[in-house]
């Protein structure tokens, strides 16, 4: 890969790199508050889903085909193809889609972060080895890798998250390594070393806190990519199981309602939820980078 391009992080979610790559001047303004507001709302609804005064996601709320029903106060978004309450599906879907998103990125962040820190801090052979492993992981287009894994492993929440976690690992590993490289050269690190501090202590106390903002900015984008990927897998029949509400499953099952024009609100609700969430995550990713001055060069 070309070494000094932002796209070096370009990973699978190659888009991430580029989204991240464009220089950002975003400050924490109205847009960021809107983004935070949306995410708080969605996460809050997802967490509180069992307590909310809404029908259960697999509770048939009408004996007829409710997808023809208009939205009302009791059913904010109307019904879906299965006469389930669409709002409830979106809320419970958020639980699963976000769970996959965050769980996958948590896997990616933990494994990738660990590898990145080790590689960036110790350098030498171990760095060469880790970089080689990451290159291999990037050798498959992300969705193809995820599709292959869920096809052969299975479609439980765990496996889907694992598959998508694996594709986000190299992204986060690379950004961590790049930033670790930079921070490891700083005076306070060399000073700590000179005082005989243990490597593990230096990594955890001195390097990691400084690397976190960069990781966070990319992690936000990665969550967005994973959420979209989950939906893509669903459409291919390789995502979460059909009876697990997720935004991807809402789109998959609402598909015919859109393409025959009879019930477009199902797909629009599911993809609207994805759209605003991805938009917010992308935006916040930009803001974090601008705020902590995560430079493109640092992404090498």
């Amino acid at each position, binding site marked *: 890969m070309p070494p000094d391009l932002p796209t070096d992080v370009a990973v699978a979610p190659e888009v991430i790199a580029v989204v991240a790559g464009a220089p950002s001047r975003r400050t924490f303004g109205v847009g960021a508050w809107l983004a935070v507001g949306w995410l708080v709302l969605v996460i809050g609804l997802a967490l509180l889903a069992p307590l909310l005064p809404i029908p259960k996601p697999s*509770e048939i709320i009408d004996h007829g085909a409710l997808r023809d029903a208009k939205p009302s106060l009791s059913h904010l978004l109307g019904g879906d193809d299965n006469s389930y309450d669409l709002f409830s599906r979106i809320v419970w879907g958020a639980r699963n889609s976000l769970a996959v998103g965050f769980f996958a990125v948590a896997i990616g962040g933990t494994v990738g972060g660990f590898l990145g820190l080790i590689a960036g801090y110790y350098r030498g052979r171990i760095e060469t080895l880790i970089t080689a492993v990451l290159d291999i992981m990037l050798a498959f287009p992300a969705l193809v890798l995820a599709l292959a894994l869920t096809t052969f492993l299975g479609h439980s929440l765990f496996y889907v998250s694992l598959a998508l976690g694996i594709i986000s690992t190299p992204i986060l590993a690379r950004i961590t390594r790049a930033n670790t490289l930079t921070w490891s050269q700083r005076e306070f690190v060399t000073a700590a070393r000179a005082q005989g501090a243990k490597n593990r202590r230096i990594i955890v106390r001195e390097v990691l806190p400084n690397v976190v903002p960069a990781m966070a900015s990319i992690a936000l984008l990665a969550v967005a990519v994973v959420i979209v990927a989950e939906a893509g897998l669903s459409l291919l029949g390789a995502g979460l199981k*059909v009876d697990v509400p997720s935004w991807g499953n809402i789109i998959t*099952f609402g598909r015919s309602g859109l393409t025959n*024009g009879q019930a477009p609100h199902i797909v629009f609700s599911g993809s609207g939820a994805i759209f605003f969430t991805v938009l917010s995550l992308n935006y916040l990713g930009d803001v974090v980078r601008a705020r902590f001055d995560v430079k493109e060069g640092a992404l090498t």
Partner: protein
Amino acid sequence: MSRSARSSFAAIVVGLALVAAACGGGSGSSSAGGTSPNGSKGEGPPQSGGSITYGLGAESSNGFCLSGANLSPEGIQVAESIYDTLTVPNEKGDYVPYLAKSVAPSSDYKEWVITLRPGVLFHDGTPFDAAAVKLNLDAYRHGLLIQFAFANIADTTVVDPMTVKVTMKVPWVAFPAYLYFTGRIGMMAPAQINDKANCATKMIGTGPFTLKDWVVNDHLTVLKNQKYWRPGLPYLDQITFRPVVDPSQRTNGLKGGQLNIIHTDSALQIKDLRDAAAHGQLTIFENQKGAEVSYNMMNVSHAPFDDITARQAVILATDRVELNNIVNGGVNTIADQPFAPDVVGYVPDPGYPKFDLAAAKVKADAYKAKHGGQFNVEVETTIDPENAREAQLLKSQWAKAGINATIKQVDEATLISDAIGGGYQMNLWRNHQGSDPDTQWVWWHGGSAINFQRFKDPAVDQIFDIGRSDIDPAKRKTDYDGLSKALNAGAYDIWKWYALWAIASQTNVHGITGPDLPDGGGKQGLLASVHPMVGLWVSK
């Protein structure tokens, strides 16, 4: 500036056009896809020539070595173009000779003599003769599933080049129906049967069309058989069958003009197509005669459904009206038995219980009390989105009765394999196309190896044994009246509804019901999904 500004302006205009189009949606405008709004009536004399693309819901990727094939309704549709059967049903539901000149029993129905129509050629130019028919029947007697249907055949012999004699183990009245067997028993050329390696893909029949090429999962093209034994037929020069698995994309392809005719069993699509037909955009032909029944079949050799209490509980807990309203938009007709109203064996009251949640709870609790407080059910279905929806809804309904269901999605081959092997508890199934009830012997008789539900019910067996050899046609019509009741008493199945098939086409496609039969007596009787290809034509 000017150049880049103009091109970006153009791009913005495209963007705006999109938005405008989005706003203009939903107005039900009738942008006519054809010329004559009422194309189904007054079609006029058939015109020769032309070619069409036929959108099907599934690919028959296992091929067309018919004796060993397990064809889906879509596969049968393709087979209709390449092969002919010895008999076909007429509009009254009787089986009449088609490729055969006559099919006649001995007085005790232990021997059947098949006489052939002279001058018929296979696509490879070889004659259609008694040796070929014997070869075919013997192949069917060893076929994957059909061997069980033909188990009653003791022997086949060539009497002379145009005559075959079939000897039965026990008297068999319904044999002509088996020679059609929902259109599966096409006559293959010896060259196809003997070419074991390519039998599935190099199709050679006597039918109205010959195979041109087949790329699995992409298209299968057939060309007009210039030497077809029925003079003046077929009309079309070419048919291209194209698998389009997603039901809504199939409808879209028809509306968008990429497909000329489609085949669908999706009630929601049928509703949509009916609307479009009412606006004159296309024509739709629906058939519920001899319909298959959609049902959940239970495996009685396996917990929990080895216990009749469990079976009764799920039957009582299933609100089929609600299910039909949601899954099918209320389009389909609820079934209380496997037989459609026009089929022998149908009875007005087969004793199927009504939906009763309270009673279901009682049964479910009784089951739980006996089995450690647990009542878990695994429902197996295909990856088809509409089946998946149905399974979800069943799960929702049963949850109200305290029954905990999980959904297992598999591909169709695995579903069938699990049914054969017995490795399932319950599955979503569709079968039992209307015909002579004796053709259902294989599915429910205790002596059949492909009684997938694995019950041995003396009441059921007795009905089948009497019916099979009852040579009194009048009495035979009532022999099966107790069958549905017996099945319902055993609580083996959750009957849901009769399958509804629609064939929708652009308004210039005609002749879906086919021409008159060669020996007169009206047209071929259309059962369930199958319709003949020989009569299709397009107006210019």
